């Protein structure tokens, strides 16, 4: 177990190193000059050269990379070209909205998808099953921005139940926070509800056919106990796996959703940074995302231990 943990933590090092090199090179190979963008439209060639030297972009690539990675190892992600402040504090300001959006989305997804999928499996081939599966196909097919604008139009513009856009920290109170979170999180969760309801249904359906479920019924257990304690418990491993993968994919959805709902989070920061060729910010955000991805995977593997006693590392 400890050996497993040590190995897994050690394995994050090459992953992050690979991501670092890849992002660094990719950014410098894409067209677009950060110095020119910082200098503005009316800058002269000399001014741009001067800014390039200030930003350290006139050094050879290898040297730039060495400098950057040495700083990163010390926990210094450098200064943003565009926002003119340390990248670390920039991320610090933006992480809360994104984390909130991700967690609320995850919550909605699990609370809706797992019961839906379980019911669909239990009432296999009934109208409920068909409804859930139909919704699932539809949920896959609608892009998140279309859904986002649709929700804004219906619930914010027409019904005026929620604000159109924006973000409020949970420190400002639960309702202001939730009020602004419901629409973006719902829009974002639809595709994950579709995905996880489907997986839950398949997984529970398979377990319901297993011998030990028959044993549970043979003991005279109520159906609710049979389904929740016996079937769902055994179906949990694939469901959790997909929730984890979904959580990682959420990062892409966050970028779009934050733009639609004008939420000042990491997604928006990424978009702004990419448009401004703000190398230090992009590099840091992507490193952070890949680290989160590796961490989520590790957490999923650890959850398996709790869910299935047969799994030992």
């Amino acid at each position, binding site marked *: 177990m400890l*050996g497993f943990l040590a190995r897994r933590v050690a394995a994050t090092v090459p992953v992050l190193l690979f991501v670092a090199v890849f992002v660094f090179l990719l950014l410098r190979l894409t067209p677009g000059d950060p110095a020119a963008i910082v200098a503005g439209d009316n800058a002269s060639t000399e001014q741009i050269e001067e800014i390039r030297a200030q930003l350290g972009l006139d050094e050879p690539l290898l040297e730039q990379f060495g400098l950057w990675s040495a700083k990163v190892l010390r926990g210094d992600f450098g200064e943003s070209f565009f926002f003119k402040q340390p990248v670390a504090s920039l991320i610090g300001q933006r992480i809360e909205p994104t984390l909130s959006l991700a967690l609320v989305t995850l919550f909605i997804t699990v609370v809706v998808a797992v019961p839906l999928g379980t019911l669909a499996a239990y009432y296999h081939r009934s109208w409920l099953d068909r409804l859930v599966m139909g919704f699932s196909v539809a949920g896959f097919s609608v892009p998140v921005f279309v859904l986002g604008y649709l929700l804004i139009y219906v619930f914010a513009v027409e019904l005026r139940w929620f604000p159109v856009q924006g973000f409020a920290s949970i420190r400002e109170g639960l309702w202001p926070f939730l009020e602004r979170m419901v629409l973006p999180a719902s829009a974002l969760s639809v595709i994950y509800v579709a995905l996880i309801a489907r997986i839950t249904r398949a997984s529970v359906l398979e377990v319901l056919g297993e011998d030990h479920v028959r*044993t549970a*019924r043979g003991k*005279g257990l109520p159906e609710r*106990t049979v389904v929740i304690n016996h079937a769902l*418990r055994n179906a949990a491993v694939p469901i959790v796996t997909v929730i984890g993968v979904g959580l990682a994919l959420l990062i892409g959805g966050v970028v779009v959703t934050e733009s639609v709902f004008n939420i000042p989070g990491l997604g928006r920061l990424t978009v702004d940074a990419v448009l401004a060729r703000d190398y230090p910010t992009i590099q840091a955000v992507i490193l952070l995302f890949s680290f989160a991805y590796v961490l989520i995977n590790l957490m999923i593997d650890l959850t398996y231990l709790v869910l299935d006693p047969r799994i030992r590392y």
Partner: protein
Amino acid sequence: MSPVLTIEQLSVRLPAGADRTYAVENVSVDVAPGEVVCLVGESGSGKSVTAQAVMGLLPRGQLQPTDGLIKLKGEDLLRAPARRLRALRGTAMAMVYQEPMTALNPVLPCGYQIDEVLRTHTGLGTDDRAERVRDMLDQVGLAEPERMAESYPHELSGGQRQRIMIAMALVLEPALLIADEPTTALDVTTQVQILALLRELQAAHGTGVLFITHDFGVVAEIADRVVVMRAGRVVEAGTVRDILDRPQHAYTQALIRAVPSLIPRPARAGSGRTVLEVASLAKSYRQGGWLDRRRVVDAVKDASFEIAAGEVLGLVGESGSGKSTTARCIARLEDPSAGRIRLRGAEIGSLSRRALRPHRRHVQIVFQDPYRSLNPRRRVAASLIEGPMNFGVSRAVALERARELLAFVGVDPVSIERYPHQFSGGQRQRICIARALIMEPALLIADEPVSALDVSVQAQVLELLDQVRTRLDLAVLFITHDLRVAAQICDRVLVMRRGEVVESGPTAAVFAAPEDSYTRTLVAAAPGRNWDFAHA
């Protein structure tokens, strides 16, 4: 005494489009308190459906009781509401299943699973329930009840798991226990213990038992009365003596005759040419990853034997004895850790994958489960010709050989373009034999080839294997856990236990006067050993 269970004229309808209209038709069975009634039949005879109908566990919407009566202590079960049935399950009637590994929930501790019965059906407090669970685990002969209660199913042996199942079924002292092939998945020595335990508990509590089995050996051991079923109908019923000694119906007679005799065949002289020589073969596995080398498991230790052409050598032993590992090493599906394997004079034990290739075709295997050893998405023809074509035979020639071989193994060559699911289990095993033979091997390894088949089919497949051996002068390594089967086909046997060969010799000699104490236990454990079915 009034019966615990009365089944009268029960009919259960199959869904439209099945091969027959009723799964069970006009079935009547009685079970008195303290009595063991065996429901005997081959697969598809409707014995399990009858049991599920009693428990009210028929698959919803697929199987529907259409006629008849099921009474548990006078109470009509077919007309009872679902709520009432649920209250009766676990309290008045309980069930033990065939495969304790899959019948127990793998992610819950065993004690919890037994406790669930008490929690659902009684108002007992936590301590009282824990006490009852401990007491029950003690009654089913499990040492260290506390540790057992905390264990998960995968941490226990097959026999221990089945004891847990029995504890779960009997914890509320039901009047009726239905046991559906409860010992089929167990080793013979474990089987004897479980049968004895069931007998003992059933006598102590006066439980009526409906015992479902396909094995007449088990019937001879445990039954008071016997009901023989075939294709959903009761063929014959009577006391165990009547049925075994004086079977009236032709089907019962045929079934009993098909049980292989424990009296071994005389050894035949092979042609003398040694095909396989194994010397000091060993295989060990290392458990654990590269950071923690936990322990080394010796699956096979120092096994030496040889097989001549035209000879059948039996490898007999219980699960985990290393018999399959030995075979897999010989076929080089696994790499032996030590020892020599000489096939037709050539050393193949240490050859590289590449150098091994020309030798591959000389060793072919027939596996236990014909349902899983044929690729379900390939036509039989494709499965058969793949091997020879891989060794350079043209498609036309290979197909021609495949047709000849199908005819030889008793499958109509016209059906060569069908898929595996369109054949019965026995036919599939014949196809598997043909697939092995098409490579023209010198050594045929048969790994429990008849264990998954019904007795009547078993006899036919054994006969086919014998024909194959005679006509093709093959050396056969026959792996089995069933002494009856070994007695019928093997010239010599090797008894294995925990990776070691404990005894070897001509089958007749080993069976008549086993020298090793383990062999003696095995022979004594063979169910129905006091009953010579073949000559009944």
